């Protein structure tokens, strides 16, 4: 093992790490080696199933039951082997020398223990401190991470905080012990864009202050490019490429790294001219949507207003992206247009007819609108074969024979790129990307004039996202349906939108042609969103990446 001579020796050194469930079975991590220098940040990047999380958990020896490292593996912290420590010795390393922050802030704090006790727990365990000292340190830390009322926070329960706050609290409680290494497993994936940025900045601040090394697990190349100087790219359990992030991302040597970089959002053609002059297909006029308040025993809570009087138009064949944070009302508005939510005021006109007036005409027009949901798992009936899923809308056309339906389903399968051999499978037997293709096939099988795509790619892996976005664009070009693309992901929006509407707290704060919004944002909220979105082509430039990709032989 050749160590770099100028460094005092790595903080963490992983060698030939192989992790498998039992002896005979194929490994989930294979032959992984990397070093982290003291105070340095290294990112493990890969898609779901790449083994990055299991590799990170091996360091703390927190692998789920049948998984364990092979005999030849070695993980050293400042030169001391971790894999051969006794359980008791390992407990003294966990928390004290290596801290860990988890992905889901909603489930990684104990719901039945006040924040203060959870923060104090590890301190009491690893350091000999009095109760007063522990309290002082906890308060100081909470103040440091800018929590408004630290004393109150200590007595509060986890469920009283938002996801972003919980993630800060978790970070604080881990950093309180001044660990030498912090493992951060997708620490911001579950958070909104703006909050993501906050939490990451805080993490970098705290770790730099304390000189803590960081092992960052992420699927997000944009984030890695911005924060981590070193990167290891993993695919199917193996490290396919590693080195300086700037080098790896601008001149990827391995084909998989290139495909990951290719999958990054890139601006498509179009979107520079305002397509509002196209004949409007849908007009949303002064739509107000209220959610009924919670039902109490004898009364109802006051209703909550989700959308405050929104106007917008969508032209024939146009893609309008609706962008905003969670809770901004963007999803509610999309669902109202297809009739899943009843607005309390305003009008939604489709080809001039107000869809909020019930009647045969409304029912007929509604069938020209379809929706694709975020989660392709819950949007398909688990008991329906996928060819039946796609054929189901056709049952509404009484004129079609079973043979006609079958022909049409086959045709649509081909259009969305699904092999016909999958037709008799059940949804859970397909991959996430295939399921989303089925959902899209179901939406377009009757040639709708308008499709709402509600975060259609945010549950998918990066490379799959890219394919699905391209598919939506291709289908649109071929069939000319209009699309309302609801998303929090500016990267995805940039790839498909003609126009963009930005929503904040139930109001549209800015609307315009895509290039205008991305290049010349007017509203402060839009600017902050764009600022927080870590679009890689702003850090590296698309040109650099593709030019380098073409130049380096694999």
């Amino acid at each position: 093992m050749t160590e770099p001579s100028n460094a005092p020796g790595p903080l963490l050194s992983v060698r030939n790490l192989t992790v498998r469930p039992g002896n005979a079975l194929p490994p989930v991590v294979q032959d992984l080696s990397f070093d982290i220098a003291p105070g340095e940040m290294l990112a493990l990047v890969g898609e779901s199933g790449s083994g990055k999380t299991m590799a990170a958990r091996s360091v703390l020896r927190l692998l789920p039951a049948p998984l364990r490292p092979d005999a030849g593996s070695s993980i050293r912290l400042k030169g001391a082997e971790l894999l051969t420590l006794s359980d008791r010795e390992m407990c003294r390393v966990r928390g004290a020398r290596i801290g860990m922050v988890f992905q889901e802030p909603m489930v990684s704090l104990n719901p039945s223990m006040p924040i203060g006790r959870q923060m104090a727990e590890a301190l009491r365990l690893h350091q000999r401190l009095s109760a007063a000292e522990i309290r002082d340190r906890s308060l100081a830390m909470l103040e440091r991470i800018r929590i408004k009322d630290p004393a109150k926070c200590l007595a509060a329960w986890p469920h009283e905080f938002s996801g972003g706050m919980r993630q800060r609290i978790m970070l604080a409680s881990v950093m309180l012990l001044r660990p030498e290494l912090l493992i951060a497993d997708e620490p911001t994936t579950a958070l909104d864009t703006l909050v993501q940025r906050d939490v990451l900045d805080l993490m970098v601040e705290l770790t730099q202050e304390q000189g803590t090394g960081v092992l960052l697990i992420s699927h997000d190349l944009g984030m890695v490019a911005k924060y981590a100087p070193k990167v290891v790219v993993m695919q199917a359990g193996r490290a396919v490429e590693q080195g300086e992030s700037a080098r790896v991302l601008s001149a990827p040597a391995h084909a998989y790294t290139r495909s990951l970089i290719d999958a990054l959002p890139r601006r498509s053609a179009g979107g520079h001219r305002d397509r509002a002059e196209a004949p409007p297909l849908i007009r949303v006029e002064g739509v107000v949507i209220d959610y009924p308040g919670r039902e109490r025993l004898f009364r109802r809570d006051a209703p909550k207003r989700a959308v405050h009087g929104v106007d917008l138009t969508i032209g024939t064949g146009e893609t309008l992206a609706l962008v905003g944070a969670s809770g901004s009302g963007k999803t509610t508005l999309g669902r109202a247009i297809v009739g899943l939510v009843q607005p309390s005021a305003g009008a939604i006109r489709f080809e001039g007819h107000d869809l909020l007036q019930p009647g045969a005409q409304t029912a007929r027009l509604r069938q020209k609108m379809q929706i694709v949901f975020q989660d392709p798992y819950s949007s398909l009936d688990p008991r329906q074969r996928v060819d039946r899923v796609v054929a189901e809308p056709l049952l509404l056309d009484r004129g079609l024979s079973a043979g006609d339906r079958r022909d049409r389903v086959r045709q649509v399968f081909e259009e969305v790129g699904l092999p016909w051999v999958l037709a008799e499978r059940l949804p859970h037997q397909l991959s996430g990307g295939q399921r989303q293709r089925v959902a899209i096939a179901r939406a377009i099988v009757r040639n709708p004039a308008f499709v709402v795509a509600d975060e259609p790619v945010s549950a998918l892996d990066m490379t799959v996202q890219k394919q699905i976005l391209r598919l939506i664009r291709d289908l649109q070009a071929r069939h000319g349906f209009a699309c309302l693309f609801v998303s929090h992901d500016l990267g995805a929006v940039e790839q498909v939108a003609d126009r963009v509407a930005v929503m904040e707290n139930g109001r549209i704060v800015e609307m315009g042609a895509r290039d205008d919004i991305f290049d010349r944002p007017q509203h402060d909220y839009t600017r902050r969103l764009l600022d927080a979105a870590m679009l890689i082509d702003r850090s590296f430039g698309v040109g650099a990446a593709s030019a380098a990709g073409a130049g380096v032989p694999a």
Partner: protein
Amino acid sequence: MLKFLLTRIASAVPTLLIVTAAIFALMRMIPGDPAVLMLGDMAQPGQVEELRQRMGLDQPLPIQFVTWLGKVLSGDFGQSIATGEPVLPLIFERFGVSASVVLIAVVLASVIAVPAGMIAAWRQNSLGDVAIVGTATLMLSVPSFWLGLMLLTVFGLWLGWLPVVGYVSLADDPTAGLLYLIMPVLTLVMVEAGAITRMARASTIEVARLEYITHARAKGLSERAVMWRHAFRNAFAPTWTLIGLILGSLLANIAVTETVFTIPGLGRMLIDGIFARDYPVVQGCMLFIAFIYVAVNLLVDLIYPLLDPRVAA
């Protein structure tokens, strides 16, 4: 918090009202005239008419119900046809007997079964787990009255270690009372421990795969600390509800155990009432048992936020 308590208490009122009405209606569905039943077949028509008026049976049903409800609320459950005694004091006396058996049994069963279930879950699929789950499933499948009869036959009749028939109150003679309690309590403990073990195991497994358990381990806590400090409270919450349900429903199911061991408890009073066609007693017992059940579940719900602070939010 206070709001949660008040809302939960208020929500029990309509339930109790319908329960009361249902029992009232059920008793009115008994074929035959209650007045005739009370006086016997030999009664003169005049006497029957007079009693009907006195009992308010000539009034329309809703009025009868309201009058009866008023009496029940003021503690008047009527008189036993067989003995003429007021029903409520009798119920209280018998309830004391049943409650001592049930309470001791449920506490013992929980103390044994909850840790057993959690340990089984923590060592999921180990030999110990298989043994605990197997035993629990077996105990779940054995009817209490048969288990009771077997214990009685073996320890009472064959070995002669324990008294077979009768009951001595703990208050009268603590030693003898305890001897009489051993077998009924053992029967109930064994039967109920099965269900509680399985529940505790299932909810612990559910909790054990949550991220905050891994988080607790990542802090450096020992397995024991992770289990008791972090898993226990969260895993115990659903089991707590089950224990409440068992505690409440045992008062009805204990009739069987009381029959086996000839214990003069509330359940036996109900059954004897049914056989003697002593409807005021039947009505009173049903009402009382249902009330206790609702009250126990209410209490369980009110304590629940201590285990899971999210429900009161």
